[in-house]
């Protein structure tokens, strides 16, 4: 009889088992690496968006004479021309988030000076989409500040939240 040399079935099974074990371990570490890098990328994007929004909101807060919060924090109303103790309503800048879109309603930002152009008619413009949460609250009376938090929903599926007590202060103390 001629001897047919080769791998036996048990040998083959053991080899396949060891091979698949190695592949599974490699795939796991690869997947976790991809997830981590996607997450850190999403975090950088979200932080960039947050800092841009904060820049925008803080400067409007600095120009405001009075600030109030409506819709249980979802709506931030900045009175630009009237103090808190005045009864009439002057020019206002309103930030609110509806259906994941943060909007700014009010006089336009002057293209050359960057200040609020009070002569322009109020308009609503999108500040950023993918903002799943915008909530503002007044700091304790007299501290002249607003705290707000923003939750950015990244298209990759991750979401990041950041709260910020504004560096920008109102022109006057809050009057309760």
């Amino acid at each position: 009889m001629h001897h047919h040399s080769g791998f036996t079935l048990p040998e083959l099974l053991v080899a396949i088992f060891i091979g698949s074990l190695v592949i599974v371990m490699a795939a796991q570490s690869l997947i976790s690496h991809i997830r981590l890098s996607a997450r850190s990328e999403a975090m950088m994007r979200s932080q960039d968006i947050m800092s841009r929004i904060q820049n925008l909101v803080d400067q409007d807060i600095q120009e405001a004479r009075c600030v109030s919060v409506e819709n249980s924090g979802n709506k931030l109303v900045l009175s630009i021309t009237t103090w808190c103790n005045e009864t009439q309503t002057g020019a206002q800048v309103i930030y609110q988030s509806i259906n994941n879109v943060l909007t700014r309603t009010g006089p336009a930002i002057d293209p050359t000076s960057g200040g609020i152009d009070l002569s322009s008619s109020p308009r609503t413009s999108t500040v950023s989409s993918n903002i799943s949460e915008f909530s503002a609250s007044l700091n304790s009376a007299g501290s002249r500040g607003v705290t707000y938090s923003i939750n950015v929903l990244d298209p990759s599926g991750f979401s990041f939240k950041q709260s910020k007590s504004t560096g920008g202060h109102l022109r006057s103390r809050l009057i309760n």
Partner: protein
Amino acid sequence: MVPLTLLRDNNRSQQGFTLVELIAAIAVVGILSTIGIGSYTRITGREKVNAVTIGLAGWIDQVRKASTLGSSCTATINKAIAPDSIIATAALTSTTQTAIERSTCVPAFSMSELSGPSSSRSTYSINSNNMSGTQTVVQFTPRGTLVLPSGNSSIDITVQLLTSGPSRCISIKDLIANIAISKGEDCVDQERF
């Protein structure tokens, strides 16, 4: 004397490829290389457009950052781009209202900033929904916000490799000037930048 049978065997072993076999092999190689060259041309075309698009998007973000230093900057992007031409320039929107003493925003963005000799570069066409004559205008306020054309929520800039090559779109969206680059040719289908 060599036996007759050996001679016959020798003759048989000298047989080579027949003409039909050769033609078939050449045809297969021809078809494969045609496919290969075609996809190579497509890939290089796409990469060329990517290079210009990503470079331009980064440059526009630099203009935005320069604006936040205190004075509004306006970027002007040319429509017809030759291998050696300037793609875009940025200037102060108003020279009288400068918060900080300076005369420029950011240096111009030109084709020479892309790698390779000018002979290897191509020509492009850059169009947008905010053209002034043959130039795209993008203005930022000193707060880094985008000045949007009336009726639009974004400025969409399409970069196309000439002639009839692939194109990609840069979309500058919303007040905070989020810059996104399209995955393909459609401005709506976007990746985050």
